């Protein structure tokens, strides 16, 4: 190893140690603890049914009460992935899903926006979501975020179009939930 390599190695190691490279410190949480925590939540399929029901009711009520255009789906309505952050170590047992409502063409007028937020907050509140937090609030461009106890985030906004989407927190798959303990590693061969 050259002197330059040694110096560089030292610098990189030092920098990465200080910066915490590789993973969030929170990832060090114990796998079993995380699994037990998620056992208290509904499995992802149950959660999905509830969230989709909520989104459908919000969409319908916004059309009925605020008079926005009907919603049009323009892409994949559902995507999902393994959990990220501290729950990433659950691997295949954990899952996050993301739901798009597509768009309701057109903008909600500034004067109608507070009433629209009320509609969303009322229905979401009954599903365990907290108070809406302002993400953007300026003329012609508004967005609020509502979160629930499982880390789900509901985003409702309007600019050129009106949008409504939801990302779940981390939930166990139904199979993992029924199993009740972390999956044992299946043999590779």
């Amino acid at each position, binding site marked *: 190893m050259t002197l330059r390599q040694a110096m560089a190695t030292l610098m990189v190691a030092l920098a990465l140690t200080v910066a915490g490279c590789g993973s969030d410190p929170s990832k060090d949480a114990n796998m079993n603890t995380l699994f037990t925590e998620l056992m208290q939540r509904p499995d992802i399929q149950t959660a999905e049914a509830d969230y989709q029901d909520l989104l459908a009711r919000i969409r319908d009520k916004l059309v009925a009460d605020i008079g926005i255009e009907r919603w049009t789906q323009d892409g994949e309505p559902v995507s999902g*992935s393994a959990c990220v952050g501290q729950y990433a170590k659950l691997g295949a047992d954990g899952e996050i899903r*993301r739901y798009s409502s597509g*768009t309701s063409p057109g903008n909600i007028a500034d004067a109608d926006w507070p009433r629209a937020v009320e509609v969303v907050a009322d229905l979401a509140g009954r599903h365990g979501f907290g108070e809406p937090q302002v993400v953007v609030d300026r003329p012609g461009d508004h967005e609020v975020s509502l979160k629930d106890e499982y880390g789900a985030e509901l985003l409702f906004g309007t600019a050129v179009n009106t949008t409504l989407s939801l990302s779940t927190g981390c939930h166990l798959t139904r199979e993992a939930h029924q199993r009740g303990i972390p999956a044992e590693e299946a043999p590779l061969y």
Partner: protein
Amino acid sequence: MVDFAKVRRWQPEPLDQAEHQLKGRSEKLLGLADEFAAMGTPACWAGDAAEFARRRRTRVSDRMEHIVAGVAAARSALRNAADAIVGLKHGVAEADGLAASQGFAIDADGAIRDVAPPSDVPAEHADDVSRERARIQAELSDRVEQIMRRAADIDNDLATVLGRVANGEIGDDGATDLASAATAGAGQGDLSVLEPPSGRGTPGDNAGWWDTLSKAEQRRIINENPEWIGNRDGVPYTARDHANRALLGTERARLQEEARRLEADLDDNMFGGLFTNDDARLDQVREKLEAIRTIEGTLAKPGERQLLLLDLTNERAEAAISNGNVDTADHVAVFTPGLTSNVPDSMQGYDGNMDQLQFRTEEELRRYGEDPSVATVTWIGYQAPQWSETIIDENSVTEDHAARKGAEKLAPFLQGIDTARDTDAHLTALGHSYGSTTTGLALQQNTGVDDAVFFGSPGLGTDHLNEINVPDGHATYIEAKWDGVGDLGHFGIDPSHLDGMQHGSSAEAQHPADSGRTLAGVTGHSAYLRDGSTSQYNMSVTIGGMSDKMVSGNDRGVTDVLSWPIPGTY
């Protein structure tokens, strides 16, 4: 040899007509065969004359069987050649269409001329335009080369079959009736499927080759030779996805067999792996089996995904998975991670980050009235340095060896995205940490990338931003507080100090100030992709082609001051 102008005029219809004529004659012959057989030898006829007649009839029958076999071979070859010419014409149309849309002409001899370069290009964009035109011209040249290779292949194959028919070399495989002879002959009229360009091929070569194949030939390659196209840049990603998924099963079976054999060898050896490499090899095989399991788990998650790359030939598995369809998305982003990234440990997590990024970008596009069509790619297509290699390995994170090798593969992967598509994507390259060095080196080639976002970078492999080939003002650097890696300036100067670099914030922000979007700040080296963060938002608006909405900011700390390069020394 024919020239490009003649190939351009090739039509499948005359071959189809010839095949129809042969079909008519063949059916007539088959009909006569029934009559001929019915004539037979009268039951009451015996003696020398009867025997002579019987032998004569047998000879005629044999001769007819050979003729029918030959005709069937010719028909089959003509039919296949007509199909192949349909594919060839598609390849020609792709090349002509690209040339016409970009102001180029393809001459009769296949030479490419720049006939309508854009006028009134502002001086500051002249290099960008020149680079883009050079890329298109090179692609056209490669496509023409492949079209001519394909034309020669069709010509040779058809001539070979017809020559064998003319010389009576088509056998009837011992057929005893004309229908069997026809079947035997038809099988000898198959044309070969043209193999891909040698080596890795340029994206233009590969796209040119693929576009000249008929749909049937393309399906045959996916089913029978998926390894030809799985990693072949320039071939559409939907086809690559089908091929790579098909390879997962066969590769797993092969690796499982190898693992069992190595384990048995180690068990039989009293010294274990002390004097062989079997134990190290077994570890590698296990890592690849774990990689396949991770890939399958990732692909099984909800939403459209494509397995764009699968390479199990190196020490560690390499793969790339997209969220969304890379062939059709308006906006495509390719993320290259850095130190310690590998498929078994990193793919699922980064795929989650990329799924979030795609989701955020699409929602942002929807709100602002744009078409929400986005694909994000996790590209672990190189041997990223691992901790075990830090000190003595040539793949060490302290050296740029792995980044340079990675850039050799990342650059054509990026080039292949626009090349494989009818219309170019808005293409963004994302690079984190050592992956930003790999990305920086790749972008020193002509990739067609429109925007680049580097974050937490130890250097881009250059001291000068004009060596990064993206349009002026479209290279962005994001660095968080307490990210020491971002201040190393080990592979070129600290990107914080590159002249012309745009700076995206990673700090907590309201954008625009007071009434704008609320975004979370991040610190350290590993949180740039955190959902809801300023850095993630900056990436999403860049990916969506809305970089005017980016939160600018240069979150410099004291180490950035220390890393400031001395003017004139770089």
